[in-house]
């Protein structure tokens, strides 16, 4: 689709959205992206510390102008309390993944060695596979994924990026 081609070329953006915990709020937020041909690369949602509110971290990519418009349209949603497109250096960001890697006996120690370097924890070991848990920046997870790909990833699941603003000021 033409819209996609136009809008999806551009840098990654990490948008933090504080929302009222009301039914339908996820659909409303997703619709703002979908209508403009933006892809949601990752999405993490959880209750915020404040009662009645939830926090979402949305990673998307696209041209600056398009993303600015998305942020404004999100802000316009009645259920959105606060929204901001954060630059990487202003936030602490973490993501977790669980990765199931194929480990024939002759490769097992090599796999473990790589996992160690990344400080990934093995949380389940089977005959021909190991499941690792790894936490860190999204780029660290990307690197881990590509290293493990050499051995063979059977399946994996990532939480999506979580962010909080650095310092005392709330996100």
């Amino acid at each position, binding site marked *: 689709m033409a819209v996609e081609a136009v809008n999806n070329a551009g840098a990654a953006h990490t948008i933090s959205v504080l*929302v*009222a915990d009301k*039914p*339908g709020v996820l*659909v*409303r937020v997703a*619709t703002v992206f979908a*209508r403009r041909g933006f892809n949601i690369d990752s999405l993490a949602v959880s209750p915020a510390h404040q009662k*009645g*509110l939830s926090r979402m971290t949305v990673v998307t990519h696209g041209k600056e102008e398009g993303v*600015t*418009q998305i942020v*404004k*349209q999100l*802000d*316009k*949603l*009645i*259920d*959105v*309390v*606060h929204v901001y497109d954060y630059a990487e250096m202003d936030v602490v960001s973490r993501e977790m993944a669980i990765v199931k890697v194929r480990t024939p006996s002759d490769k097992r120690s090599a796999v473990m060695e790589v996992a160690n370097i990344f400080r990934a924890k093995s949380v389940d070991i089977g005959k021909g596979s190991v499941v690792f848990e790894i936490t860190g920046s999204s780029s660290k997870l990307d690197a881990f994924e590509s290293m493990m790909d050499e051995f063979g990833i059977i399946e994996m699941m990532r939480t999506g990026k979580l962010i909080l603003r650095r310092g005392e000021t709330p996100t």
Partner: protein
Amino acid sequence: MIGADLVIRALEKEGVEYIFGYPGGANLPLFDSLVGSKLKLVLVRHEQGAVHMADGYARASGKPGVVLVTSGPGATNTVTGLLTANMDSSPVIVLCGQTLTVNLGKDAFQEADVFNITIPVVKHSYLVSNPNDIPRVMREAFHICRTGRPGPVLVDLPKDVTSKAFESVPDDTMDIPGYHVPEGVDRKGVEKLAALLKTSRRPLLYVGQGAIISGAHREVLALAEKLHAPVTTTLLGKGAFPETHPLAVGMLGMHGTAYANYSVVNCDLIFSIGARWDDRITGKLSEFCLDAVKLHIDIDPAEIGKLIRPNASVVGDAKLVLKELLPMVSKLKTEEWLSTIEGWKKQYPLKYDQPLDGELTMQYVLDRLYHLTKGQAIVSTDVGQHQMWAAQFYLTSKPRQWLSSGGAGTMGFGFPAAIGAQLARPGELVVAVVGDGGYQMTFCELSTAALLKLPLKILVLNNRYLGMVRQWQELFFEDTLSGVDLEGNPDFVKHAESYGIRGLKLEKAADVDAVLKEALAYNKGPIVIEALTERHANVFPMIPAGAAVRDMIVEPTRRKMAKPEGST
């Protein structure tokens, strides 16, 4: 007292006079509660009509219009009306009956997930699952629909929720932490507007519906006169500035006046007051007002920079912002600019051909309507050629005098919206100007108008074509007509008469004044005037979709045209 009573009570508390409704299984408790309430039920013939009526009521009065429909098809029939209201920032509340909460998601009889279906076309919406929430939701719905940038709010009410018995009225304290209406005026921002205005020699005020919604017409007039700046209005901004004023250049955009569009390309500063740089106005964005300074006032922050990056902007209520701005500005040296514009007005006036054989043209009928009503009627149009000619020839002078579906361009809007407007402004003259195509989309509401004995004038401009589409086919598709001939139209006079409504036929230019006068004098109920017009006229000036002002066709053309690109 049951949930439905709480809903109706909330409407009474908000001072709602009319409810435009249609019953069904899922809203029976609500219809029952209406009996004995202060609300007057307007029973429509199709739910789309109900929403347009509420929308027309809202546009004519500034107060929210309220709709009540049943679940499933009743609710989905409101979608076009919601889109129309949403695109044009009109405060409408749609209450839908819904199946029992235990049945939700189980494909129960007449279940439609109207909450999700309508998310993209509402300002906000609710599915009420806890009966105790009714008073709060109703209060929030009204608050949200009429404040800030107004828009439609949908409230989905399952039958068990409206049937629930109550001993006392639950709390209605609002809980919308994410909703903020811009308040006060950003003085720094206004100072910046004033500073940029100061050096302009060729300014243009570009005024949209936002000015009408905010009630800023007096301030717009004061600003134009203080600056000596010309004013152009959008299709929906008609009425925000008197079009008969010497500083008025009329409507701009695709079918705007040539002098308005020449003013747009030649100005050194363009100042949007509640207008959103729509593609029907800017045409090709990459060529729009490249060298002009752009100023923008809008209550919706998301409109600032959406299409055009302004040199200065203020988020806020147009009236308050202009009040702050007025003392900061003084007369600009615009004599030369105004005389240039005066020259364009003389050189490229709006005009039309008057057939020698006495055949009727829409332009002539509308021109006469304007003169015979002294420009004082509330005009509600449908969508198409007649709409554009009405915009060109029916000059407005007051806010909320002009109702038209702009953003959505919804055929079928004009007539029901006129019903709503007449209910909102009972003592005033309301004229629906409709084409034979769009009229047929909602003309079942003749029963509604007849029952209410509304002294409404329905002017059907019948060219037996979907005229505007025929125009595009003629100009851009080598005159290959496809699906635009409305053969099979009824006789609109006989059709009206079958509802007990008076009908007048108009066929010759010579009869226009007599027939219009007769219709205008009639006040026993609605009256339909069917004008059989010539079929081949096209609306000019025209800037093809997505093109720039230099591509404007000022006069009728027979030259071959490229298909428009970049826009619909």
